[in-house]
């Protein structure tokens, strides 16, 4: 129903636009001339995008070539899809895809709702002081560098000297070599990510919650809604658009999160679970100089990412009327 209406509106709009095309363009130019200073400011970010985001796209062609630095990008020999075939036929292909997918999927399933819950809690805490305190405590870890975080993990989880294993031993268990066990890799990686980022990610929800109309709460209170009911029926619906946008933004990074951290945590004993596309690109491409091959892998990765993003956006538009475009 809704989409039919939308369509009708869109058709109307298009027709109207066609009629008014010329005057509109003139108006845009006049508008631009009038606010030229604002548009001048826009030049800087546009330039940045052209230079650092669109410019490098030119180099993508090496994915289809046998790139030789001395010959340069254009003169390198064209090999078609060879690099892609090599990747698809590789022994590591399934593992890389599986790990990249599962790590991100679990991260999303587990890590995505937590900041929302945290924001709702902060919002409901009657003491403002305690609420602020909680917020600060939870977002401080966000400012630590990845190297420090992995260092902390190493210290805490060390089988010889770490407090976690000391506790396990005190309770009569055997120390666990957390960081050298493939089955522990994903829980540790995702868990520490949550710890590090939940406070930071909750900020945007807290901001959104403050924008919910207080009259709605009062009305709900009048109707005898309990605190939980108010969260469920007022707070949550109030921030759904933000949640959806954040979800789509997260999907936009679906295939490329946590590269440095994974690389730092990786070793031969957990690599079964920790080998992902981005670390493979780094170790093979940058360290072994296989630029064309890894450019192909990177391109493949990005294309999957783009498809996911388009799918999720379409899905979100269908079910919740909120989407990026």
């Amino acid at each position, binding site marked *: 129903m809704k989409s039919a209406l939308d369509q009708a509106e869109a058709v109307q709009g298009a027709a109207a636009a066609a009629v008014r095309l010329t005057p509109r363009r003139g108006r845009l130019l006049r508008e631009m001339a009038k606010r030229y200073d604002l548009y001048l400011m826009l030049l800087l970010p546009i330039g940045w*995008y052209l230079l650092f*985001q*669109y410019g*490098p*796209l*030119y*180099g*993508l062609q*090496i*994915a289809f070539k046998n*790139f*030789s*630095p*001395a*010959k*340069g*990008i*254009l003169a390198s020999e064209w090999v078609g899809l060879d690099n892609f075939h*090599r990747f698809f036929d*590789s*022994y590591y292909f399934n593992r890389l895809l599986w790990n990249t997918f599962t790590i991100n999927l679990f991260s999303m399933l587990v890590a995505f709702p937590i900041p929302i819950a945290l924001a709702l809690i902060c919002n409901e805490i009657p003491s403002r002081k305690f609420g602020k305190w909680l917020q600060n405590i939870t977002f401080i870890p966000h400012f630590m560098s990845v190297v420090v975080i992995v260092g902390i993990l190493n210290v805490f989880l060390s*089988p*010889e000297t770490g407090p976690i294993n000391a506790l396990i031993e005190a309770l009569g268990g055997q120390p666990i*070599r957390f960081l*050298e066990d*493939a089955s522990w890799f994903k829980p540790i990686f995702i868990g520490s990510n949550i710890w590090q980022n939940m406070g930071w990610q909750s900020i945007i929800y807290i901001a959104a919650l403050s924008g919910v109309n207080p009259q709605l709460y009062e009305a709900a209170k009048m109707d005898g809604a309990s605190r939980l009911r108010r969260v469920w029926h007022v707070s949550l619906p109030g921030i759904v658009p933000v949640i959806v946008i954040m979800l789509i*933004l997260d999907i*936009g*990074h679906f*295939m*490329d999160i946590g590269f440095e951290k994974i690389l730092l945590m990786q*070793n*031969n*004993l957990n*690599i*079964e679970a920790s080998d992902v596309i981005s670390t493979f*690109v780094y*170790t*093979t491409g*940058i*360290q*072994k*100089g*296989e*630029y064309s091959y*890894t*450019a*192909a*892998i*990177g*391109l*493949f*990765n*990005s294309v999957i*990412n*783009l498809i996911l*993003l388009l799918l999720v*956006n379409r899905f979100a538009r269908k079910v919740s009327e909120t989407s*990026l*475009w």
Partner: protein
Amino acid sequence: MRKQWKKIAIGTMIVPALALAGCSSGNNGNNGNASASPSGSSVVSETGFPLTEKPVTLKMFTRIAPANGPFKDMPVFQDYEKMTNVHVDFTEAPTDGFQEKKNLLFASNELPDALYRSGLTQLEATRYGASGQLIPLEDLIDKYAPNLKKLMDEYPEIRSGITTPEGHIYAIPGIVTLGAARTDKKWINQAWLKKLGLQMPETTDDLYNVLVAFRDKDPNGNGKQDEIPMTARAGTPGQGLPIVNLMSGSFGLDQQLGYNINIADDKVEIWMGSDRNKEMLQYLNKLYKEKLLDPQLFSQTEAQYLAKQGSGATGVFFDQTNNNFLPIQDQYTGMAPPAGPHGDRLQAQASPIARDFGAFAITNVDKYPELTMRWIDYFYSDEGSTMLRFGREGENYELRDGVPYYTDKFLSVEGAQGKITPYAGGGAPHLIDDHVASFINPPQVQEAQEKLDPYMPKVRYAAPMFDEATAQKVNELRNDIDKYYEEQSTKFIAGALSFDKWDEFQKTLKKMNIDELQKIYQDAYDTMKK
């Protein structure tokens, strides 16, 4: 307004995602593909010092190890500049991340005049040589490097180990004629052996029993079970497992042609899928399971490993010298390779005479290749090597019977030795022979080497040089196979993978075309024999 915001947001997102793939390329510079060197040769004098009348500056890219100080403060480069009239401007990249910095230099084509202590792999040398970024050096060596040439004539395997099938030399190695600098000794805690009344282990079973005693009988006498019976370096991912390389000889697994290869009756066998290898991994797994092998074997850092050597709490470990445990050196002695279950007794781990392949190379932007060649050649003489390794006479070293020794005063300053010489940290392009070995080859190390000598393979074939296409093929095959072998061996040893999976392991190696790789090495061996 809101719609617009969304558009911008989506734009900001997709574009970086797409750009990810392209980000490693960023090159379009094609500056000067010409491999012919522009003139400038006239500056160099044919013989003697200074190398040039007119001062010349050369830019070199180098690796700086944690032990080193800045290169410009090293006495060798200060004094050598005065001698030669050549100023060298070093760009120092730390060992961590050196490999990627080096690759990016070539990928972006922003090259220095030369690469010093560059650790180029054979593939890199062939690849960048074929593309013209590195210049061929064979003629320059003939004309301008008398010391190096003499060494190459004396040891023909140097030349064959660095010359491509087309007859070019793109990189000069660090040359080690001193046998003791090419092996890792097997150090065993003789103080513990004596205290527990044990014999020096002669077989792998003996070794097992000794390690059990080290673990259980509290040889360091502190009442705690804190002894580490055996440990080894963790190794760098992609470069093999040190513990495997060090123990393989006892299981009849040699390391010929610079790879996991046995040669018998002119047949090349890559032994990674063999039953002997299974036996070795099972043995190591037994040690690991019973805590006879250091549980940190796969995760310790170099610093942790060196600290264990000096702590005296370790039973058996492996290293080239005794430099890391000098204060307690009497506790340790060298051990011969133990004989394995089939009676094999081999010191498989050993480097060829051209130990540090790709230590020095000249690029196509160097205006003075002749001068550069003369500059580096000096370090392949005793005199030059002494200067490089020992610094300044009087200040850093003194001559005893004509042989350089660090002065006691200089050695008493902790950490000072590594600061003054680029050899500390390995891989410097120079000659290591008896003359300059007083520090790395003291009597204790010589003795430990003598224990190994009878068990060295009769011939050691160096890694063969392939032509570019073959080198690329070998690289593709080995990227997959080596990664797989390393991972699976680690898991077999650590017990994360059961030996029931051995068949699967063999099958996967086959699937990765290990036979094709073996064929390539066989061909290379046949060509070499001809």
